[in-house]
């Protein structure tokens, strides 16, 4: 254990671990030392000079090594100058004074200096009302300026660092928090200072500007209103905003978030979401979130929202729609196939599963990724916290591009590597995480299972994995389809099981699922199906939260074989166009529920805005249909549904909504009273969620499938192997409606090896045509020299329906055609 040291701050005795900074020790004791540049998640910089305090240390007699006493007390020698509390670590017997006249003068001086260059446009500043500079000025600042306003330096006030973040140069106080966040925490040094002295300016060093998916966080930790998001800037005043707790629904990380809403004239007096902010959960997302989670919420306000049921494409009442659906289901019973996606909540999926089971029908999970049956057995144990992994621990990331698929996991894994954890990144190509890996393994597509199997053996990497104190494996579907990823999952599960890295906290398997609640869907008993066409044939298909027809022309064709189609969704899609009945669902921003994250943490989200039109919550619609069919399904309350779920799904036994809403003290302290310290991230008062236990942990028998290595598809001489990869910003329904992200979504772009591109006669930015599965499409070309010459990477959800590795005929197109 680290040594504990005792010091006195303003007369209060504080005992903290060795190495603690004075500023943090004070915070722990409830004493606020104002800071601007210091941030508890980053190394101290010592540049703003706001945290000045008086520091004294006991005088030690050189001869005896003992403290010199004076009137029965250790004699304290104070430093002649004020010291920065953010750069000094505590020492035994230290005395810190934060309220003396000297300190007060020091703070006042620093503030006065800062304000000489500050525009003081608080009345129109986004940060006004939650601004550390504003707050600290009120508390510690000089009453009046001695600097002549006319001599203020005027600088550009609307500088886009990228299309998402805007800089106001006059407001910047050069604290470097934004730069340090990108350098230290993200590992993408895309911001920097230019020029010096009073001319020092933040600039973006990347092309495109501010090229990082974490950019929004800099606006949370910027201690002034210098960095604002394109989404929120000049949108509202912080004090007008109401905060509603939520969980991000964009990926399996399950970042805790806050929706800030207000009533808006522009929206006809409706309550609308103005911004999405991270909410602290140190075991999930700490105080961060990615830009997709922050900005992509606009789909819920899209003009494509379904607001009224339709029957045979004509507007209908809920009664008519329910009647028709119930009659059809009643008449066909076991012919009913429920196809649902991990976009839905646990409650939705529970009711849908109950409905399918009640009818004796089939329930299918809409995904191209397998292996979810294994995480319930050998997934990470209760109490898992990636933030605790470090020296002696090993993390394997295989067939996943965490940066694109689950950004905050990238962030947390990268930081675990910074703390000394052994990171193994195995993929068929370079990914951003690779830079932080101790071991980067590049395999040929098709060798995924073999690669993982090879980690059991005598090699140095294998030994390091086996001997790791804790080991976590992330597996994904980079370059893989349903079968490939299922096989990979089995191989990973075996590796973990054989090396005894299961059944305990910080050990086990994590699926980097394609949707936020895929894990929950597996828990509810949904399973994927490789051959959807046969599954649809002559069936009554009830599609919930998915757009198969839009995703893949082959599935659109397959749907034509269905007898009757019911589609329940929030947006109009190609699939709703094919439906006999369309049921409008509520967006998750309009209702409550729970999701199960990839780490199997069950977390609660709450309603933030009013319901769109006549939409109903998915669980309620399914529950109502169930009732009409004589099943005892809940149709009113999500939380009652959760209780039912907990009573019948074994791994959820004992859970209730109160447990999910429990909180505990977290470090660093953030929140409304501590804006200057942790930033504008929200404190978590609504629940940290509960991690499910695994079978391995409960001591139950674990039955793992046999590991099968499928032989890789061998394309013909003149063909390439097209493999699907995930892109964070894609044309998926939940992203594309956000205009702000259009540039990041970009055109469908496939990656080719330079040799292959040369052979096809195309360069970066050129065009190719692709023919596969009887379909053809065009795409732009990107060059990636880390992939094999026989492969073309095809992004998912960008209009090119490659759902698993397929042979493809690629031709270079001479003239660029406009798509």
């Amino acid at each position, binding site marked *: 254990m680290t040594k504990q040291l005792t010091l006195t701050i303003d007369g209060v005795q504080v005992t903290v671990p060795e190495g603690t900074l004075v500023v943090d020790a004070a915070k722990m004791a409830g004493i606020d030392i104002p800071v601007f540049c210091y941030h508890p998640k980053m190394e101290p910089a010592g540049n703003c*000079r706001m945290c000045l305090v008086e520091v004294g240390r006991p005088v030690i007699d050189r001869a005896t090594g003992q403290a010199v006493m004076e009137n029965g007390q250790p004699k304290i020698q104070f430093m002649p100058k004020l010291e920065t509390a953010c750069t000094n670590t505590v020492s035994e017997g230290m005395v810190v004074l934060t309220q003396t006249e000297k300190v007060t003068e020091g703070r006042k*001086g620093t503030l006065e*200096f800062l304000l*000489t260059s500050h525009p003081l446009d608080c009345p129109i500043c986004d940060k006004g009302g939650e601004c550390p500079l504003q707050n600290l000025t009120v508390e510690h600042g000089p009453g009046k300026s001695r600097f002549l306003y006319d001599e203020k330096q005027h600088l550009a006030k609307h500088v886009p660092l990228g299309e998402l973040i805007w800089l106001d140069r006059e407001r910047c106080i050069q604290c470097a928090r934004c730069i340090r966040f990108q350098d230290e925490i993200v590992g993408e040094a895309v911001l920097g200072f230019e020029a010096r*002295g009073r001319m*020092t300016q933040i600039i973006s060093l990347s092309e495109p500007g501010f090229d990082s998916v974490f950019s929004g966080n800099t606006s949370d930790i910027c201690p002034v209103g210098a960095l604002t998001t394109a989404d929120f800037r000049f949108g509202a005043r912080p004090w007008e905003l109401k905060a509603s707790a939520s969980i991000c629904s964009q990926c399996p990380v399950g970042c805790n978030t806050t929706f800030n809403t207000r009533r808006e004239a522009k929206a006809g007096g409706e309550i609308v979401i103005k911004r999405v902010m991270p909410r602290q959960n140190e075991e999930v997302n700490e105080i961060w979130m990615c830009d997709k989670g922050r900005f992509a919420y606009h789909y819920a306000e899209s003009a494509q929202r379904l607001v009224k049921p339709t029957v045979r494409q004509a507007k209908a009442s809920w009664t008519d729609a329910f009647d028709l659906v119930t009659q059809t289901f009643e008449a066909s019973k076991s012919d009913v196939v429920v196809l649902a996606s991990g976009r839905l909540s646990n409650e939705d999926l529970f009711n849908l599963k109950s409905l399918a089971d009640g009818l004796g029908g089939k329930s299918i999970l809409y995904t191209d990724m397998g292996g979810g049956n294994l995480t319930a057995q050998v997934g990470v144990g209760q109490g898992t916290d990636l933030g605790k992994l470090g020296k002696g621990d090993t993390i394997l990331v295989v067939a996943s591009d965490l940066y694109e698929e689950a950004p905050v996991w990238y962030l947390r894994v990268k930081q675990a590597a910074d703390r000394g954890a052994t990171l193994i990144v195995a993929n068929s190509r370079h990914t951003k995480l690779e830079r932080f890996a101790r071991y980067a393994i590049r395999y040929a597509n098709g060798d995924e299972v073999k690669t993982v199997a090879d980690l059991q053996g005598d090699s140095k990497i294998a030994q390091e994995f086996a001997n790791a104190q804790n080991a976590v494996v992330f597996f994904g579907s980079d370059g893989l389809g349903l079968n490939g990823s299922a096989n990979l999952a089995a191989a990973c599960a075996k590796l973990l099981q054989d090396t005894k890295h299961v059944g305990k906290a910080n050990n086990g398997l994590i699926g980097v699922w394609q949707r936020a609640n895929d894990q929950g869907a597996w828990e509810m008993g949904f399973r994927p199906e490789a051959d959807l066409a046969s599954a649809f044939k002559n069936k009554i298909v009830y599609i919930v939260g998915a757009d198969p027809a839009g995703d893949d022309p082959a599935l659109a064709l397959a749907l034509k074989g269905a007898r009757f189609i019911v589609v329940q969704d929030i947006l109009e899609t190609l699939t709703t166009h094919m439906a006999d009945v369309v049921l409008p669902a509520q967006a998750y921003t309009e209702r409550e529920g729970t999701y199960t994250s990839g780490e199997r943490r069950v977390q609660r989200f709450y309603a933030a805005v009013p319901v769109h039109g006549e939409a109903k919550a998915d669980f309620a619609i399914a529950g109502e249909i169930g009732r009409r069919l004589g099943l005892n399904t809940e149709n009113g309350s999500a939380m009652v549904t959760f209780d039912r779920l907990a009573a019948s799904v074994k791994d959820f036994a004992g859970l209730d909504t109160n447990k999910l809403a429990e909180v505990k003290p977290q470090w660093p302290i953030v929140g409304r009273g501590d804006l200057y310290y942790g930033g504008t991230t929200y404190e978590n008062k609504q629940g940290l969620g509960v991690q499910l236990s695994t079978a391995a942990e409960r001591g139950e028998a674990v039955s793992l499938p046999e590991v099968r290595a499928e032989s890789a598809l061998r394309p013909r001489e003149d063909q390439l192997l097209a493999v699907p990869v995930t892109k964070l910003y894609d044309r998926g329904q939940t992203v594309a409606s956000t205009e702000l992200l259009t540039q990041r979504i970009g055109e469908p772009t496939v990656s080719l090896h330079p040799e292959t591109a040369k052979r096809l006669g195309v360069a970066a930015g050129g065009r190719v045509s692709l023919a596969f599965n009887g379909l053809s499409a065009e795409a732009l070309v990107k060059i990636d020299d880390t992939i094999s010459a026989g492969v073309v990477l095809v992004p998912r959800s960008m209009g090119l329906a490659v759902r698993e590795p397929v042979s493809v005929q690629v031709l270079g197109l001479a003239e660029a055609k406009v798509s």
Partner: protein
Amino acid sequence: MAHVLLRHRDIPNLNQLDVYQKNGGFEAFQKAVTAMKPNEVTDVVKASGLRGRGGAGFPTGMKWSFIDNKNWPHYVVANADESEPGTFKDREIMESNPFQFLEGLALASYAVGANAAYIYLRGEFWQVAALLDEKIADMEKAGLLGEKLFGSDYSLKIYTHLGAGAYICGEETALLESIEGKRGQPRIRPPFPPAYGLYGKPTIVNNVETFTNVPLILAYGAEWYKSMGTPDSAGVKIFSLSGRVKKPGNYELPFGTTFRELVYNYGGGILDDRPVKAIMPAGASSSLIVVDDKALDTPMDYASVRTLGADLGSASVIVIDDTVSIDWVINKTIHFFKHESCGKCTPCREGNHWMLHLTERIHSGEGSQNDVSLLLNVAKQMQGKCLCALGEFATMAVVTGIERFPQDFQKAVKA
């Protein structure tokens, strides 16, 4: 007296390796590497009383003994940034007596176990850098640098590195950042370079002149060196004399020489034979000394200059006569510091910006007595709060100028 540092003034062509060697050059280095333990070299330097010539006057041998021997590799860096207005001594050494400097650098490297040494030169010294590169190549050819020197296990390489025109890069930690390819801004200290320096490794940073003393200290011994100068400030120092004197230039003199001797005997007195009004003994970073007979007769050593309310610093003595108004002087220094503040910390970044507005106003005759008191107050508000010494330096001339020459400001401001 023969020169110790500016020996080229006594020996023609000393910048040629053969000439330097004929005059005893590299004997000290060879002897150290072949016959002395590294710490013995440090001990001799310690005993000599040599103090750093970069400004702070820190005892050199003591600095070398602080090197962290639990963390390797070690580096030695020569600070050839020479950016202090009024300082021009390192340039003369490097141009005219380069081998003595390089030998001193090599001796320091041996003393602290560094196998790589860097010379950091201000960007404007690119010609000096090219010249040093030639001299380093000569040494390599002669077997004075490289692998396994003189048949020992000791190897040494010396590299030159050019800055890009920032005064702050003379500050040792900003200098290290700059060598690492980063923005030249000071680091938080502690840790100091002997514990955490270049690339995070233990590093000794010394001024060019400091190194140049070392070969002769090794050759003639600590006692010889201590026989020059004063007990507080041993040895000789190059005084860069400038300002309103007839013969500005570098003068190598023992510590303890008085201002009067420097200005009148060596500097030939004041232009137009006017009276001296003030002296800045350490370039633009100086406090202003009020000059009277007592001041002129004060010996120039670290302790004595302090009795005048100033620091000797790098001994760039700028002489100001009665034709110069002090408000003009501080307007000049603040222009410089405002331009050179790196911008990292608030008091220096904002304070210099503010002070410049005030000195401009005062100097242009637009200011008031209030502006003068405000200026004094702003300078004091910066003091003791900056991240590095540059911010403190900026306040020196302002505070002492206003406090010691109030009449100049009264004249400058509107009635």
